[in-house]
């Protein structure tokens, strides 16, 4: 098997919210957007071994292993206080691990009798397209695993051609649309959304768009014209694509973004009505 490795920030072996059925979810480290309301901001960056967390840890549970360029984490003394994550200047964490395709396959094998499929999530998983391609091929050629469905949870901020090698292997992609106007998108995520809009169109054409989600963020993407444009995009894709309107929750977001406010019921209903007027069947959560 290939020596290719990926940085994995976590694996959830039973999730009921990452696609149909019970699923194993593999979270990849590193993202190419930086959303203000990110609830897992420690999965955005890569560790540069600066040592800030090592010095901060109140239980001395972290050590730099400079030879292998990684951080050693003592699980027994760690109290899960998450101080290390809060102080990391890189939006990273000392906890993610390098794993091979083989390592991940063995994790899936452990739970294969209980799941409908696997979902890869992030961070941004499409930054690891070659690794994913190998992983998915391995799953599809494994007699005990090939029945599992494969879903990608992506932000869509990736060149079109990166999708091509993966599409034949997967069942679908779940994608967020953070804003329509490039300016608003940049405010929310730090980047513009051209590639994302293209990804939506492309995946829809290829019949691989599974779900399109919109996170309502008051004062940013909740004015009427913005919502009508989002509705247009939602309307432009197949009716089979699941659509979800998500209320931005502000627990777990970074301190510097604590000014973000959750939408009121009126604001949620306002958005819901606009999607309703466009005749879009949307799930609100």
């Amino acid at each position: 098997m290939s020596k290719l490795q990926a940085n994995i920030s976590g694996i959830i072996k039973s999730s009921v919210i990452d696609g149909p059925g019970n699923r194993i979810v593999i979270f990849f480290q590193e993202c190419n957007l930086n959303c203000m309301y990110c609830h897992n901001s420690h999965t955005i960056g890569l560790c540069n071994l600066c040592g800030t967390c090592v010095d901060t840890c109140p239980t001395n549970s972290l050590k730099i292993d400079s030879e292998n360029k990684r951080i050693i984490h003592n699980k027994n003394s760690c109290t899960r206080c998450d101080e290390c994550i809060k102080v990391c200047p890189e939006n990273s964490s000392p906890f993610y691990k390098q794993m091979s395709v083989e390592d991940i396959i063995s994790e899936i094998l452990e739970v294969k009798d209980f799941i409908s499929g696997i979902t890869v999530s992030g961070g941004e998983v499409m930054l690891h397209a070659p690794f994913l391609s190998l992983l998915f091929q391995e799953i599809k050629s494994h007699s005990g695993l090939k029945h599992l469905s494969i879903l990608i949870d992506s932000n869509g901020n990736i060149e079109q051609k990166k999708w091509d090698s993966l599409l034949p292997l997967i069942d679908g992609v779940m994608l967020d649309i953070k804003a329509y106007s490039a300016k608003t998108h940049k405010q929310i995520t730090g980047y513009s959304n051209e590639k994302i809009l293209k990804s939506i169109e492309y995946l829809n054409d290829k019949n691989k768009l599974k779900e399109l989600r919109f996170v309502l963020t008051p004062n940013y993407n909740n004015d009427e014209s913005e919502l009508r444009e989002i509705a247009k995009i939602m309307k432009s894709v197949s009716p089979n694509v699941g659509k979800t309107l998500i209320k931005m929750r502000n627990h777990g977001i970074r301190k510097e973004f604590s000014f973000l406010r959750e939408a009121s019921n009126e604001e949620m209903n306002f958005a819901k009505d606009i999607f309703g007027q466009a005749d879009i069947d949307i799930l609100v959560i």
Partner: protein
Amino acid sequence: MEEIKNRVLQVLTDGNLDYRQKKHHLAYIAESTQDYPDISKEAGEALNEKIICDLFEGTAPYRPRYVLPDYAYALKNGVNYLELEPPTNFDEAINFLSILYIQVPSITGYSVYLGNIDTLLLNYVGDLSEDEIYKKMKLFWRFIDRTLPDAFVHINIGPEDNVIARVILRIERELKQVVPNLTLKYDPEITSDELLLEASKTVFEVAKPHIANHKMTAADFKGEYGVVSCYNSLPVGGGSHTLIRLNLKKITDLHSGDAESFISGTLKKYCKMTLDVIEARSKYLVESVKYYDTDFLAKEGIISLDNFSAMFGFYGLAECVNQLMKRSGKELIYGKDEEANQLAHLILEEMKKIVDAREVPYCKGNNGKAFFHAQSGIDIDIEETAGARIPIGIEPDIYSHINTVAPHHHLFNGGISDIFHFDETVKRNPAAILDIIKGAFRKGMRMFTFNLSNGEFIRITGYLVRRSDLKEFREEGSRYGSALFAANSMDNANVDNRISKRVISNEQVAGKY
């Protein structure tokens, strides 16, 4: 005599009991004037100290604990005693069963088994539309709840997908009644995914049905089986004379050595004693009371002594194992640590061997042996965890949970149940539940249910109570016998804090007076 008078007066004047409940308790007091069936002094002491627990069955058994009438036989042949001709259509069949249910005895005074109802009624559907069936069944369901108010009253559906099973699940979701408790017999080769999905959605609403591994359970019985009361599996046309359970925690407290000497000494001794009590009670019922010679169900072939056996139950496995581990200097815990799980398994296998090695009279229903049963607990169990369950609050993640308990489920031909807990979010994705159910059965589980946090129904040890009934009972008494049981359980076992819910029994109530 003075003492009896006082107990009777206490029942008569208890404003929380209705007329029928009072009668039940008065009968219990009357029964308690009789000598206990012939057992050794040592066994008598163990009973007194609740090391061996007869679940308040009373001192002079005059009816079997669990009766599973062969309703199919009765429907086909009619019942002379009740002057009932075989029914010829759906209405007559429901009417027939409604009358018969009231006449079936059990330890609680209410029938604990109402049949594999979809299979029974399918013969009478004729050209009724689904809507007509729905209307009739809804009235039938209301009748059952109002006349048999005890959550041990249990009805079965499946394994085939059929219109009646589906209608019942729909009615369950609409009526949200405590009674009857419900089990779906599930076989991946027979039951459709759609029916299982309907069942899962129903569990979200009313914390039932329980899901039974049909193939595995059916293989343990010569004829048909039913799931009754607190998830006991027993032969149809028969049942169980008695259920005596051994308190594994208490015998571990009494034991003063390591795990090995526990298994070869203390455990063996008390298993034997438990079997002695089972034998004495069974004999009393058969030989002194002559129940099976005199009851109309037996006389008319709706039940037969040959289909009866008795049940050997236990509880408190978790406490037993944890304590034995501690004594050997290891802080290892059942449900968490492999070594502790292995010890648990060893203890269960040893018990099963002991039970299987003992011929018990009048147990032809299980080839002359008692059924082995992981007893799911009652309200007085303050320090002991039900059966072989992992204690409330320390249940590990779903897979570890299944991997811990599944390896021993095959041992329990008399039934076992585990409860898995899910967050409310699963409601949006019921397919996930199907995955888990199928996975759990693939791993060899026999029976389980699952609970959602914040559901309206509360499962406690063996059965179901409505949250509002509990509150009401504490304030003013409840129509359901089981609510008292539940109230006690909730008070005793911090079940309120438990991630979920479950029902209990009415059986012990009388022992309070």
